[in-house]
């Protein structure tokens, strides 16, 4: 005969163990990214960002004029990375996370397709140094998304100096990224592109084979640049919806 607890092991209240608290549901785990909620710090070496607003789960970013350069591209091997990015130290259930810890991350993202002023590239994930313009030192990995003025978007996997995205020949609407990062090593990520019915269109994968400094603070990063060397004009906008989940894997 099995033993059924009659008291909650934490509170001692009768009735057995309390159900899992809200926010820990595995059915709807993601947290919506709100770049205006005060938890994020903007690093913007070019003063590219004019303003950010948040409404209905959507971040809308308005730019100042920015000249065209591959330095604004995230998925590239160019030495300088001066595109704006928001960051915050990664904390899971109140525990600060360093690079010795293996993290599983999940990112879901989509664009507002009514706002297509330029050619944005978005990266969302984890990194070690969000406040450097030396690309090799950012050591970032995560979700990658491209959008142009016309045509289909592309979603994929970012690994600091490289990226892989799904084909623009597909009518993708959203991208879902699942990756692992940490334990003193960059990790691995897969991304799936979904259509307007949230059905599968394509998937891609990318390894981030870089050593991470031991016991370094890990930061969440939302980087916004361009997917080519094209310029951004004054008052150009882009808008996107992101959800993230960070889980201590080991």
């Amino acid at each position, binding site marked *: 005969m099995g033993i059924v607890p009659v008291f909650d092991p934490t509170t001692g209240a009768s009735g057995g163990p309390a159900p899992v608290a809200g926010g820990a549901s595995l059915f709807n785990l993601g947290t919506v990214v709100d770049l205006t909620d005060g938890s994020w710090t903007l690093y913007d070496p070019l003063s590219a960002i004019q303003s950010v607003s948040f409404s209905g789960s959507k971040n809308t970013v308005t730019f100042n004029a920015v000249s065209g350069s591959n330095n604004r*591209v995230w*998925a*590239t*091997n*160019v030495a300088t990375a001066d595109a704006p990015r928001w960051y915050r130290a990664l904390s899971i259930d109140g525990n600060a996370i360093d690079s010795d810890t293996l993290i599983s991350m999940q990112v879901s993202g989509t664009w507002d397709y009514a706002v297509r002023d330029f050619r944005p590239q978005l990266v969302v994930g984890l990194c070690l140094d969000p406040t450097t313009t030396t690309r090799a030192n950012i050591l970032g990995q995560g979700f990658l998304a491209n959008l142009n003025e016309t045509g289909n978007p*592309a979603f*994929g996997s970012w690994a600091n*100096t*490289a*990226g*892989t*995205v*799904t*084909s*623009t020949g597909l009518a993708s609407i959203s991208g879902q990224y699942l990756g692992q990062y940490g334990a003193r090593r960059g990790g691995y990520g897969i991304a799936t592109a979904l259509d307007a019915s949230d059905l599968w269109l*394509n*998937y*891609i*994968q990318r390894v981030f084979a870089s050593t991470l400094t031991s016991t370094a603070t890990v930061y969440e990063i939302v980087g916004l640049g361009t997917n080519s060397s094209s310029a951004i004009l004054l008052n150009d906008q882009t808008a996107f919806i992101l959800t993230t989940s960070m889980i201590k894997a080991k």
Partner: protein
Amino acid sequence: MALHADQTAIVQCSISAPDQQGAEFTTEGFVIPLMVPLADIGSLLAAYDAANQYSPNAEDSRKIARVVMDALKAAVEAP
């Protein structure tokens, strides 16, 4: 030489990355995972001279090329 392409893992995508010579490229195409057995690497590299435009030899070149071409053909023609 027992070179293999992992036919089940071929995907169409766009990659932005440094190539084998460190040059940046952004291209859409097919990624074909190739398995080079550890047992063959020593002899392959010993016979390869990067400075010689006729290296690798014709036999090795044909074997490598046919693995890639067979994999690509099957991937493109897959329903």
